[in-house]
């Protein structure tokens, strides 16, 4: 990871120094080893003082390009493999000015989830060292070794993504294509009874505080004015005032990004109450794959999505449940 970080930093400095780009979107060091923030670097000095790329840079930077790409001059951005899907999707939706962006695809190697580390009983984390599947976590109270697959972000646990932006610079190791079933959790829910599923979601969604973090971080949620913010929509609400509103918000949001959601997992990463929001989006992905053929949003910046196309032979809605025709 350190070698990747050094290469990235060097490249970013070159690009800024040569004037090829006006700014670099990357990650900036935080107060601890695990809290880097997305940041826009404008000078070499800023890069030297704060640039970081490590196992905690889970944030997807592609959405920032909506604004930044409209500024004067080119912007260089570091995208992890999964972020490139969001990037393509945003380009497809004409949200990003493609010609103003210089993409550097970077290795990911699965990002760690500090909450999962803390849940293992380790507090005061001061550093991590990853060796294969072992993570040596040092804390104020000593060192512990944790099993990496158990402490990575949900999106990384089931990732089999490869970088998708063509003709750009790559700082990447060879990635093995993994055989993972990202729908395993969805299938578990599908196997439950209606009542059990209802109870599951009721309990999960009752935690929602309607902070809008899932929406605001979501690269697919790029509407200039969200319907939930529009006072004339009749459904604008600030807090969930009833169980219905909890469901309404999440159903409509999941539906609105269906076919455009690249499964980047940011919604689940940012949820302060750890609601498994990815299970909503993956249900749509799984259903659409099953009904209309496999489709991965963001694989390309062109083409139609399952919900903006059709065939005459499509299944009837009344016959479709759990993504399969009766």
């Amino acid at each position, binding site marked *: 990871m350190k070698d990747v970080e050094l290469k990235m930093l060097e490249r970013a400095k070159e690009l800024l120094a040569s004037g090829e780009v006006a700014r670099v979107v990357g990650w900036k060091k935080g107060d*601890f080893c695990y809290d880097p923030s*997305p940041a826009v670097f404008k000078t070499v000095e800023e890069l030297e003082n704060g640039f970081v790329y490590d196992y905690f840079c889970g944030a997807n930077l592609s959405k920032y390009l909506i604004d930044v790409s409209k500024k004067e001059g080119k912007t260089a951005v570091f995208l992890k493999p999964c972020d490139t899907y969001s990037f393509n999707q945003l380009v497809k939706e004409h949200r990003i000015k493609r010609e103003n962006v210089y993409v550097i695809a970077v290795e990911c190697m699965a990002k760690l989830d500090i909450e999962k580390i803390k849940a293992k009983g380790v507090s005061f984390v001061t550093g991590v060292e990853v060796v294969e599947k072992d993570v040596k976590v040092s804390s104020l109270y000593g060192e512990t070794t944790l099993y990496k697959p158990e402490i990575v972000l949900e999106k990384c646990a089931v990732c089999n993504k490869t970088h998708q932006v063509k003709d750009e610079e790559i700082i990447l190791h060879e990635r093995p294509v993994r055989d993972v079933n990202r729908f395993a959790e969805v299938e578990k829910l599908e196997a439950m009874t209606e009542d059990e599923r209802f109870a599951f979601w009721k309990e999960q969604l009752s935690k929602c505080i309607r902070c809008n*973090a899932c929406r605001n971080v979501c690269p697919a949620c790029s509407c200039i004015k969200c319907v939930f*913010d529009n006072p004339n929509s009749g459904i604008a609400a*600030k*807090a*969930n005032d009833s169980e219905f509103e909890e469901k309404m918000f999440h159903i409509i949001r999941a539906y609105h990004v269906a076919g455009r959601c690249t499964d980047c997992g940011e919604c689940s990463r*940012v949820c302060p*109450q750890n*609601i498994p929001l990815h299970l909503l989006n993956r249900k749509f992905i799984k259903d659409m794959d099953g009904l209309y053929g496999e489709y991965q949003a963001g694989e390309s910046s062109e083409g139609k999505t399952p919900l903006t196309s059709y065939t005459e032979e499509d299944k009837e809605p009344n016959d479709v449940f759990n993504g399969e025709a009766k």
Partner: protein
Amino acid sequence: MLKIAKERLNDLYAKINESMGLFIPIKKAGEVNYHVWGEGKEVSLETLKTVKSPKNMFFPQSENMMKFKTEGKNIEIIDVRDEKRPFVLFGVKPCDYKAIEVLDKVFLADPVDSYYQSRREATTIVTLACSKPEESCFCKVFGIDATAAYGDVTTWLDDENLYWQANTEKGEALTALLKGLLEEGGEAEVAAQQEATKAIIDNLPFSNLDLSRFKPENLNELFDDPAWAEMSEACLGCGTCTFVCPTCQCFDIRDFKTSEGVIRYRCWDSCMYSDFTLMAHGNSRTTQMQRFRQRFMHKLVYYPSQNDGLYSCVGCGRCVNKCPQRLNIVKVIKTLGGKNND
């Protein structure tokens, strides 16, 4: 000082629950928040930081204020306020307790907010001193002693016992109610724990933040600081920091139409939202930088200026843990607070 063995805590909850409601950290769907206690609920006193602060005990995320019935041109107003049943708010951390005092200054100032007041008066607050503070804690910066006695009753928890000390009349009344369950003792254990905890707190990474620049006379200088633009660049404009914050108290008042009339309710709102200041003819804060600045200026400068220097932050560190992009008040203090924070 009184004490009760940890295994018997459930009896204590049940006893309280006989005559009043009990609001306590409970684990539900994997997360610990304050909920109404009931037999079989998974109480988690050890959790240092509940996701939401206990402020929703007094200032719920959403509450009905009144109803209107309309008939033709006529309006009838129905007061939906009712007598609040007595409640015990149990396990409040010292920072969260101090946050309630911050809210008191807003809601109990003239004219008193009766919705808040009635709940506040009906509630006995039992605090739980900290013994395992985290790296994100910085209550010391705001003059809070996380081991000290706050609230109507203060408790301390170790591996064996919960230690109990009543501080007020309300607290004495609650203690009297639980007489059969509590026994004498524990001074030495508590003192030892306090000492150990204080040593940890002194060494916390944020315990020495310097707030001296955040004072009313620097208001405009801080407001105009160019660093806001950079600090807010990654801000998503979500309301996570606001909603998990124990001192944020902004609210919205809205109407909901039902088949029978209109319910007027209030709900939490966030100055981080773009429509917070939106009016028919314009918006006084159009950029996220302005909104970001408002939130932190309010906590560190505006509120203290209105309230004799009391900061509207208690260093609970929830925003440090929960901000999706890891922006938080500590970064603001470090950036704007001058060289002592380097």
